[in-house]
């Protein structure tokens, strides 16, 4: 049987996450709980549900449609709650919703199915120097699926990239590296304790994995990414630590600084999850430029991402 993956969604003709025009495959499931996460619907591997309050009329059609009785009206929060333990992912509820307020995130697909979807845009990759990027969630939680998919792509001439948090066993990384042209590797904070506080996990394994990749002979381009979250990880010491760490790496690396954004707020609301950074604003371009300048002074190749 062919390997199946849990997919969040596929975005075509993306200009982030690599060169040219790309197809980005977002995989579901993530070991980290970053406070600024903009895709909370990607965290769990299983299907998750959201309800747009604006569209929901409170008609109870979803409750009636669920054969397992998994949906109920929660008096306290005044919303429909879904008991995921009962949910069998039949999608009866989203189909029944008359206004499209209820949505489901996540589906299962084979390597072949996803490859076919990627291949549809091959002419765009050809003319733009683009390709495919695996993102998440954490794409490498599903390392076998990712490896098979990327092998299929790279052996058909499609440029490949992965975006990873690095928070996976080395074996998972090892499976995909031979099929990866570009690796985007996140370093969210250089301090073990702060990293744990911000993401729910320490960074020891992440740093170790990164060093091992650096020392390996895989001919991939390595790009270190840091999301810049004002007040959380943009302190001088952390930027300096990122710089000194990167300078010590053996291979040439590029550092990309990604400004924090709040585009995920709407999804938090639909999922009835609390957004703990309410009120935090994106760093202004001047500030991003200041961080970049500091790293450049350390002799590093730095860019500011979108």
């Amino acid at each position: 049987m062919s390997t199946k993956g849990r997919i969040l969604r596929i975005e075509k003709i993306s200009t982030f996450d690599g060169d040219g025009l790309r197809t980005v495959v977002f995989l579901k499931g993530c070991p980290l709980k970053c406070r600024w996460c903009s895709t909370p619907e990607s965290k769990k591997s299983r299907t998750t549900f959201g309800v747009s309050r604006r569209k929901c009329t409170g008609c109870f059609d979803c409750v009636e449609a669920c054969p397992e009785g998994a949906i109920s009206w929660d008096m306290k929060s005044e919303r429909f709650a879904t008991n995921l333990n009962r949910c069998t992912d039949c999608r009866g509820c989203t189909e029944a919703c008359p206004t499209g307020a209820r949505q489901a995130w996540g589906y299962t697909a084979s390597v072949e199915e996803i490859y076919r979807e990627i291949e549809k845009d091959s002419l765009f990759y050809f003319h733009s120097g683009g390709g495919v990027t695996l993102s998440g969630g954490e794409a490498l939680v599903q390392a076998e699926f990712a490896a098979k998919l990327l092998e299929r792509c790279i052996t058909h001439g499609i440029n490949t990239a992965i975006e990873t948090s690095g928070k996976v066993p080395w074996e998972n990384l090892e499976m995909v590296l031979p099929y990866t042209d570009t690796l985007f590797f996140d370093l969210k904070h250089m301090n073990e304790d702060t990293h744990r506080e911000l993401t729910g996990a320490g960074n020891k394994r992440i740093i170790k994995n990164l060093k091992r990749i650096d020392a390996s002979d895989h001919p991939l381009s390595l790009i270190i990414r840091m999301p810049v979250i004002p007040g959380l990880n943009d302190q001088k010491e952390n930027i300096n630590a990122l710089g000194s760490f990167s300078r010590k790496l053996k291979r040439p690396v590029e550092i990309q600084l990604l400004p924090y954004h709040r585009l995920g707020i709407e999804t938090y609301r639909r999922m009835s999850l609390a957004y703990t950074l309410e009120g935090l604003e994106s760093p202004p371009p001047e500030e991003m430029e200041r961080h970049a300048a500091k790293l450049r002074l350390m002799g590093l190749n730095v860019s500011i991402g979108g």
Partner: protein
Amino acid sequence: MSYMDRIEKLRERVVNATPTMDIENALILTESFRKTEALPRENRKAQAFKDVCSKKTVTIWDHELIVGCSGKLPRGGVLCADVCWSVLDKELDTISTRPYDPFYISEEDKKLFRQTIKPYWLGRSNFEKWEAQAPQDIVDLKENAVIYIDRKAVRGPGELTPDYRELLAEGMEGIIDYINTRKAEYDLSKPNHYPRIAYLDAMITAAEGMIILGRRYRDEALRLAGEESDPVRRAELEEIAAVFETIPAKPATTFHEALQFVYLYHSCIFMEQNAASYNLGRIDQYLYPFYEADLEAGRITPEKAQELLDCTWIKLAEPCLFQDGTTAEYANGYTMFQNVCAGGIDKNGQDAVNDLSYMVIQASMDTMLYQPSLSVRYNLSKNPDSFLKKCAECINTGNGFPAFHNDEVGIRMVQNKGVPLHEAYDWNPCGCVETNLAGKIRGYVSADVNLGSIVEFVLFRGIHRKSGKMLGLDTGDPAAFKTYDEFAAAVKQQIDYIINKVVEANNILDEIWDDRPVPFISLSFRNCIDTATDYTHGGTKYPCGNGIIYDGVADFINAISAVKELVFDTGDISMDRLIQALAADFVSYEDVQKRCLEAEKYGNDLDRPDGVAADMMTYLAVRTNTQDSKYGKLMSGILPVTAHVPLGKTVGALPSGRNAWTTLTDGLSPTGGTDLNGASSVLKSVAKIPHDLYASGTLLNMKLSPELMKEQRGIVNLMSLLKTACSLGVFHAQFNVVDKDILMRAQKEPEKYKDLLIRVAGYTAYFVELCPEVQDEIIHRTIQDTFAGQRCCG
């Protein structure tokens, strides 16, 4: 003054002028026709043209270097009395206040019109003849907007490109000499030679008219120079006079003379017959030898040449299209669709891009006006990236130009018109997205067909819901169709029926239109001289039948695909229930509408709707292109101009989920808000339509999401998109990007921007449904620069 100073002043004059009815030519024409009752109609027309050239007001406005005007007023709607006087008669008191393209007309002109023009032409115009001769079934179809076929009866047909290379090389005296040589081959003692001889005389009369007009401009320039106190302007006026010493009688010898010759001829065409889509064609090709020679001789600098081009561009923004109020609703914006083209390949099939190609694009970037319609022929394998980049930069200015044409497809379209490959290399875009060949092709679009009605006729057994009339065929009870193939066969029967009706209408129109010869235009079609046959009467080397435009493509495809998916493939909805829901405009059938809206849609690179697109759109084109007519096989096209708006008002609810009486979708575009996968999927779907078979052209307006055009990579991304569109076989595309202004407007007026989709970093959503903070965030992240404007060509 520096050259942009002059351009700015000229531009202001055009931008600030009010479109006004201009009846001077019509008065002269009428007076002339009164005197020539006894002559053949071609000779009368030529004499009237010559009289207009001799008597019309000749003005040179301040700062102008390139001069001329088809009428008296710079932004005039020139009335072509012999073709369509009755249009103005009907709208005399309303034309200044009508909703689409109003024209001011003075009380004095109204009086002149009633006293002088109307009494003579009453009962004689093309439009009146068409109204009198159209059979009732065709009248019913057009009155209920199943077809629209009056467009070319209310003005001249247009859609042609003179052979400027030949005109510039020979001058009008050279052309007259040539006509005389051919005339000598006829013998009045032989039967049927007299009409040939008379026709060639008419051509000579017309050519003489233009020579007279040129002399009058020379005299006017000298008169103004004599009165001019500013030495700089005096020298300019003397230069203009010197240009007219040579042209148009003699061949052009300099870039300035060539450009002035072209503009004068162009304005004379409008004097003979007012119409949209008279094209200047491959201006970067036929002007290049003059530019090169001037540069070599030190007579010109690139900057001076750019200034002259820019001045010409301003002149091209002057004329306003006069047509009736209904046609204006189908094609509004006063646009004359005077197409100028840059790029492409040469007669050897090699890269034809030269310095002028870039300057032609620059002229549109300098002037930022709605005319001329700048087009590029981009040949993926031959034209350089620098040229493509120049195109992308022009698109990025937001002036809506250039209309981007895939050269290889354009070549094949012209081959489809019966032109051999080596001649098709020289094709040029025409009007909106039509295809043409300078000095060689006759043929123009005559009708629009409402594809929404076709689906309606299948589902309601030939009944037109809005009127309740039986306007289609009864193709049987749709609930009795056992398979999709039976349903599809019924759609094709309805297509055949409507095409046949348009063929019938065209056969009548072709006879009526024979009554409007154009001896002056025919001067620039060598085969018309060689055969002593007017352009109108098929004298060109390659005559074609009329073109049919298909409107509501996305609605048509989505409706058929939804029936396939819901009724036949999944069986989720029965045909009976679907028809009940459609009859009720989905009221009390909200669940059916939801399923209809959720059905797969064209524009997402999906096999089912795209398969329907390939099948149905190929069928439509092939059925159209194989119909015979007096002047050749019919042609097909997908270029709605603005027709999808009025046509939609007569179409009931469709299985695509579209509500009754709402607008249809323009051109080839997916229906707004149904293309959720971005530009690549749109282009993939659009490429499933056989563009090459639609020889009258195909039109795609595309919205690009803002992140695609961010920073320097934006231009490169656009270049990649354009190249890919060419590889896919898409013929034409015009882009606009959702910019900051649009987002801010959407925030203020959400009801107007319901279908505005936003795709940011893995997130796709309707903008107006997002919470205000996220909207602000997206606005904050969006580029400031306005991208390609909304100016739909057509």
